[in-house]
């Protein structure tokens, strides 16, 4: 038997590019789950601008950096000056942090939801997805999941930083872990509420600039109005009004749920004071997320390839 190289004439040119012609694909073809997973990962990467143009990476990473900055400073102060200042717990509670940084989170969701959702509709790229095996429902749910997880990472990253800093500063491990886990659940709920609302608005608005503006308006205006009402009602001694108002912004809503479920420090003047109100808050979260999913599915049912 001669090896392949024997058959070649001596001195044959090396490094020649051969046109192999068309090569059929004989490898494995993955099922629905693997396709959905790949779709999710690509969506998540795209939300941070990865796999998109260089310009698309700027805003998400700036926002992530600015989100982490206060946490980093707080941790620095905690670790360095704990004994001097006599600190025994986090300077800002985990559950309060997302409300303090709500502007950044809103801008992130408002800018990235259209990039992920409106884009496929505007460029009609959705046709290319619909012409593939993935089902419409899967498309919608996975897109929403990508956005939710991306938002969750944005909200959760500074919390993780604070938690690690807290442990370094020798805060009680058990108490910190409990609070941190409660805050992480809260971050997940907040990410789901914000992403659901933003995705729904983005899916209804094909033009990108319009979608960004619409999401910002919905999130910022609702928060400002709710925070104002809560402030006034708290001062005026009518907390019930503020408690009801808290249902109408994702930030105050999820904070209320954290107060109810995990007894976290309240970040608003008027957290839900009774179990009944707490249950209403919890129900409102479920309705928000469920409603957004239902609305999205209905919206995509009318999309024609």
């Amino acid at each position, binding site marked *: 038997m001669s090896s392949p190289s024997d058959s070649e004439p001596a001195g044959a040119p090396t490094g020649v590019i051969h046109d192999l*012609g*068309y*090569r*059929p*694909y004989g*490898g*494995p*073809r*993955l*099922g629905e789950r*693997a*396709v959905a997973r*790949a*779709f999710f990962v*690509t969506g998540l990467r795209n939300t941070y601008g990865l*796999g*998109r*143009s260089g*310009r*698309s990476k700027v805003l998400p990473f700036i926002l992530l950096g600015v989100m982490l900055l206060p946490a980093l400073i707080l941790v620095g102060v905690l670790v360095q000056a704990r004994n001097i200042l006599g600190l025994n717990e986090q300077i800002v509670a985990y559950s309060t942090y997302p409300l303090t940084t709500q502007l950044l989170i809103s801008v992130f969701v408002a800018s990235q939801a259209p990039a992920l959702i409106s*884009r*496929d509709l505007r*460029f*009609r*790229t959705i*046709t*290319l*997805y*619909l*012409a*593939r*095996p*993935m*089902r419409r429902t899967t498309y919608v749910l996975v897109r929403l999941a990508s956005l939710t997880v991306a938002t969750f990472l944005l909200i959760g990253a500074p919390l993780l930083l604070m938690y690690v800093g807290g442990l370094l500063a020798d805060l009680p491990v058990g108490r910190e872990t409990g609070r941190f886990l409660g805050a992480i659940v809260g971050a997940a709920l907040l990410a789901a509420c914000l992403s659901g609302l933003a995705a729904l608005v983005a899916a209804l608005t094909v033009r990108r600039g319009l979608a960004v503006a619409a999401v910002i308006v919905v999130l910022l205006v609702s928060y400002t109005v709710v925070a104002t009402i809560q402030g006034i009602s708290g001062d005026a001694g009518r907390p019930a009004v503020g408690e009801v108002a808290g249902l109408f912004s994702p930030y105050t809503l999820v904070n209320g749920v954290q107060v109810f479920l995990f007894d976290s420090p309240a970040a608003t003047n008027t957290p839900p004071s009774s179990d009944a109100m707490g249950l209403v808050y919890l129900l409102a979260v479920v309705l928000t997320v469920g409603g957004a999913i239902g609305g999205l599915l209905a919206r995509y049912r009318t999309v024609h*390839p």
Partner: protein
Amino acid sequence: MGVIETAGLTKSYPRVTALDHLDVTVGDGVTGLVGANGAGKSTLIKILLGLVPATSGTASVLGYDVATEGAEIRALVGYMPEHDCLPADVSASDLVVHLGQMSGLPYAAARERASDVLRHVGLAEERYRPMGGYSTGMKQRAKLAQALVHDPRLVLLDEPTNGLDPSSRDDMLALVRRIGSEFGIAVLVTSHLLGELERMSDHVVVLDSGRLLRSSATTDFLHATGSLLVEVQGRPDADRLLGQALVDAGLVARPAEGRMIEVEVRDDATPDVVRDLTVDLGLGLVRMQERHHRIEDVFRDGGAGSVQPV
């Protein structure tokens, strides 16, 4: 067994009937689907992909029923839409890899296939640039690449030459031919330009108002009509002189377009007779060729509206 088979396929919208009891079979190779705008071409493609339900009738693609096995069909079929569908801020390379994964290829395989098909469609270095800056020709190539990335057994190409300049159009036609012959992938390609279909397809299906006007091999459309076109010169009335001489010799001859004469072929000797008469008259024989039909003749003979399924 055909790649595509439809039986009594009908699609009615509230106001129009897009497809009307369509029975058509498409085999391997390149099949051209031709019809005026609104003839039902795009509707047919969407039904074949399982994206739009038919009102009545059945259709199967690669042996799968379009009504119940749409996902199986879409895994094995590539689709190039007529309209723009490329996101502006993604590179062709990234999009084709991603869509390969969406068709079920593992990541590594999707990368390799994407690089292969982008080379075949002729996108070189520009594949790494965002597609927002592409010319129409480059966009069409990228759209074709995404339809081929998962090595489908059938591709449905909706107006692939739309908006292309003549040289890009030639490239695209040659590419479609290669897909059908060299790549071994069945192709259903729509166009409203008959000349294009003549050049790239083995088989032509003609739709008119949602009905089948004709379906046969391209060669049948272009078969010889049994007459010769003769062009002579030498004198101002050369064509009339020869025509008269031919009639006198007992052949059927009539003036054709330009200054040519159409002679009906009686037997193998007819070309010799034409040649001899030309020489006898002292004229120069410029050309003598078989006359072929063109696909347009189907429309002219059938007439739009008067439907004669063949």
